[in-house]
């Protein structure tokens, strides 16, 4: 039905109306743990955006040009996760070799990305939603930016919350959840701007 949706529309939709974190709940683990500091959050956000764009593209190519023609699409999961792990490893080596400075800035985040379910989720979504090649690139990029936006916003809010007097049982994760809920509600305000399935 929406095969003709322009890649640009998908980028916008993936950032705002279908935010991968706030409407699909993906990448919550690192979202909760790594949103204590603004710098950490921003670094991780950039790394996730980059890896997600590239792995979505790679996985699209592998799924449609290798797995489907060979009728081995039941191996999708294992192939996708292997591609992601290998890609992250490759990026890590590449960055270490050519830009030690960037490596020190991003270094600790790269291994974390392998286990970030948002990355695998984005690849699985583009198969389920039957995106085209350009749409997949747009979706990977948009989802990454959306995730980065959410974690950066959260880091800002958490900084503020550090000065609040929160009842003991609600300290920590409980409040983080409630705040995320309010954020998800806010993002629902974007609904109707653009829509993808």
């Amino acid at each position: 039905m929406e095969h003709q949706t322009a890649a640009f529309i998908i980028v916008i939709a993936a950032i705002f109306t279908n935010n991968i974190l706030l409407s699909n709940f993906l990448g919550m683990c690192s979202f909760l743990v790594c949103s204590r500091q603004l710098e950490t959050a921003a670094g991780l956000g950039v790394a996730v955006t980059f890896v997600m764009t590239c792995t979505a593209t790679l996985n699209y190519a592998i799924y449609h040009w290798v797995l489907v023609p060979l009728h081995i699409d039941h191996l999708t999961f294992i192939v996708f996760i292997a591609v992601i792990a290998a890609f992250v490893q490759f990026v890590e080596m590449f960055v270490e070799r050519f830009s030690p400075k960037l490596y020190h800035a991003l270094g600790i985040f790269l291994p974390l990305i392998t286990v970030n379910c948002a990355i695998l989720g984005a690849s699985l979504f583009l198969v389920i939603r039957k995106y085209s090649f350009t749409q997949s690139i747009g979706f990977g990029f948009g989802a990454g930016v959306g995730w980065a936006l959410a974690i950066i916003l959260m880091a800002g809010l958490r900084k503020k919350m550090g000065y609040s007097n929160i009842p003991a049982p609600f300290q920590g994760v409980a409040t983080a959840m409630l705040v995320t809920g309010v954020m998800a509600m806010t993002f629902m305000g974007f609904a109707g701007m653009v829509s993808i399935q």
Partner: protein
Amino acid sequence: MAADTASPIGCASCGGTGACGGKGIQTLREGVWTNNPISIQVLGICSALAVTNRLANALVMGGALIFVTVGSNLFVSLLRNVTPRRVRMIAEVAVIATFVIVFDQFLKAFYWDMSKQLGPYVGLIITNCIVMGRAEAFALQNPPLVSIVDGFANGLGYAIVLALIGVVRELLGAGTLLGYSFGALSWYTPNQVMVLAPGAFFTLGFLIALYNVLRGPQPEDAKP
């Protein structure tokens, strides 16, 4: 044994909380209550939030996770003495992915509707930190039998929390339970927000707070 969420890179060792020295019943208690994967270790909440808009989905997901943790714990434990340390991660992922594929194919073959509803979240069990965490923190150091118990306990702890969230969200969001509506609830106007994303966050937030109240104050709790 508090969650290692205190350090900014804590998520590197998802579930590396380890220190589960107990055996048998002790292991079971830890997985279900004192070290519950969701409310204490805060692992695997992606799917806990995503598939709990209906109780039926939550139950199937809980079952899937029990199956995968038990299976992967058993095999990782059996292979623990022959797996070289350097490649253990990739070996664990391969074992986990195999079990996830088995479950996914089973759903597709016999419960197509459910498979479509759960969408990508069945595949995402692979990156569910609980499974990986238990394989890494427990099964690698323990004999197969205890590993099965540990996998079952953590899967069960996860499934119980999922079912609770599912009950709350379906009841408040749609006024039904497992698809059945109650005559006694006919006055209630379902609140759509509970089925949508924010409802999931609110429910889990309050559930964790409730758990904290029931468990009593803990000295080493992480600060927000």
